[in-house]
């Protein structure tokens, strides 16, 4: 018998995986009882024995990576990100939610509040109001609460003064009544008067220390800072009640408090893939169309009274598995998810448009890399 190398396997295609392994590598299959092959094979040498290199090649990544925008509105965006590992897609999602900075109200100076809403609840409500101000134009404030360090580069001051006169109906106070004070705080620090007290106009007597008016700065001159939505109810005033306060907004991140999160949500899902394993015709086709609550299937007329089921809208498949629940259907329909195709949705809360938020998130991940590279060198 002639000697044959163990690696001489004419039936195993070198350089590419056999179809069943390729399917396991690239798809999650959603079976009747549970999803299988949910793991991602990351190791570079995972397929060495079949002659397949699973290592990361940037050129390969650049060739395969694609983005297509599905929907883009003022504060909502959906796009497909194809050819990327979930660990990186998830990093972007996590950064979007907790590490992209925005401006939010952090300090509230309440001069007078006779409403039923307690001061701390009122302050919390104010904090959650999204503010339409580009956070990239601001700096972080220092930890300590020093009025001298609150300047035009790190603080936005709003004023709220509302009063419901006696004998009038209840008055809702809405977010558009928050008035931007480009010159900084107007309240004076109350100090015991004495011979050594500072003069009235001195910066020590104020809660902020602005060196110029924010509306004279070019970036805000034609772009006044306002709450994103004018109709958020802050409180309701009964007859005779009054609110007078000042709110100081600073830059922060979602991981400190959700009020600084620039997105209401950012999420992704893997692309559903519905495959008909055999031709489904006539009554079965009708049955299949009726089974699906997400209306994934359509019927194609073949003529002569013949009908055939087709997969018309796989994207709307929710993988409810209703179509494979009954007996024998699992061998007709296969439900899968494409592991490297992400349908990513970003809902901005208003500080920045969603496409810029994503760019910022990618930049933050880059900065993280750079920081560690610098530490290693």
């Amino acid at each position, binding site marked *: 018998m002639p000697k044959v190398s163990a690696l001489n396997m004419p039936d195993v295609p070198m350089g590419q995986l056999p179809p069943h392994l390729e399917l396991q590598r690239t798809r999650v299959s959603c079976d009747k009882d549970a999803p299988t092959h949910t793991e991602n094979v990351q190791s570079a040498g995972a397929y060495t024995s079949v002659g397949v290199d699973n290592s990361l090649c940037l050129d390969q*990544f650049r060739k395969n990576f694609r983005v297509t925008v599905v929907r*883009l509105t003022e504060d909502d965006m959906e796009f497909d990100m194809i050819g990327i590992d979930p*660990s*990186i897609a*998830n*990093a972007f999602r*996590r950064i979007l939610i907790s590490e992209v900075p925005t401006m939010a109200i952090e300090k509230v100076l309440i001069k007078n509040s006779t409403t039923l809403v307690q001061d701390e609840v009122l302050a919390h409500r104010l904090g959650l109001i999204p503010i339409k101000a580009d956070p990239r134009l601001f700096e972080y404030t220092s930890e300590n609460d020093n009025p001298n360090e609150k300047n035009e580069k790190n603080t936005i001051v709003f004023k709220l003064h509302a009063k419901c006169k006696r004998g009038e109906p209840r008055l809702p106070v809405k977010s558009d009544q928050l008035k931007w004070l480009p010159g900084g705080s107007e309240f004076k620090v109350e100090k015991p008067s004495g011979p050594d007290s500072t003069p009235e106009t001195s910066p020590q007597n104020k809660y902020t220390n602005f060196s110029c008016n924010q509306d004279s700065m070019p970036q805000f001159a034609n772009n006044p800072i306002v709450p994103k939505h004018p109709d958020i109810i802050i409180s309701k005033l009964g007859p005779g009640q009054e609110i007078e306060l000042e709110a100081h907004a600073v830059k922060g991140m979602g991981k400190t408090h959700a009020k600084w999160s620039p997105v209401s949500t950012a999420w992704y899902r893997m692309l559903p893939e519905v495959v008909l394993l055999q031709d489904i015709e006539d009554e079965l086709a009708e049955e299949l169309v009726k089974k699906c609550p997400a209306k994934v299937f359509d019927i194609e007329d073949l003529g002569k009274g013949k009908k055939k089921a087709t997969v018309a809208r796989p994207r709307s498949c929710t993988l409810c598995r209703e179509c494979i629940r009954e007996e024998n259907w699992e061998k007709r329909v296969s439900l899968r998810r494409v592991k490297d195709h992400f349908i990513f949705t970003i809902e901005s809360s208003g500080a920045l448009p969603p496409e810029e938020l994503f*760019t910022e998130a990618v930049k933050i991940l880059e900065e993280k890399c750079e920081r560690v590279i610098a530490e*290693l060198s």
Partner: protein
Amino acid sequence: MEHGTRDIKSSTFCLTDEDHTLANALRFTLNQDPRVVFCGYSIPHPSDAQVNIRVQTTGAHAGLVLKDALQNLRAMCQHIRSTMDGAVKEYKENPPVEAMETEETEE
């Protein structure tokens, strides 16, 4: 910060002020490097902003391999950013006409 440097092939790196966001992405790029025999990460305590990344290699300096992984990740990010900008620009130049219709049928 680096621990266990007696052997250049295997080290544990302690990154402060990082979490799953970077560590998991980094584990992916490390795993994709053929020189890496083993890599993994752990967060010793959820209250501490700290991750430990373990890298064991076939012979290369673990620190250099980690640095390469970081550079790969950064290069991927740069590519993602430029691809994204291109896709958004393209969408803004010719927005799909039936965007609204397909949306209704999908919901």
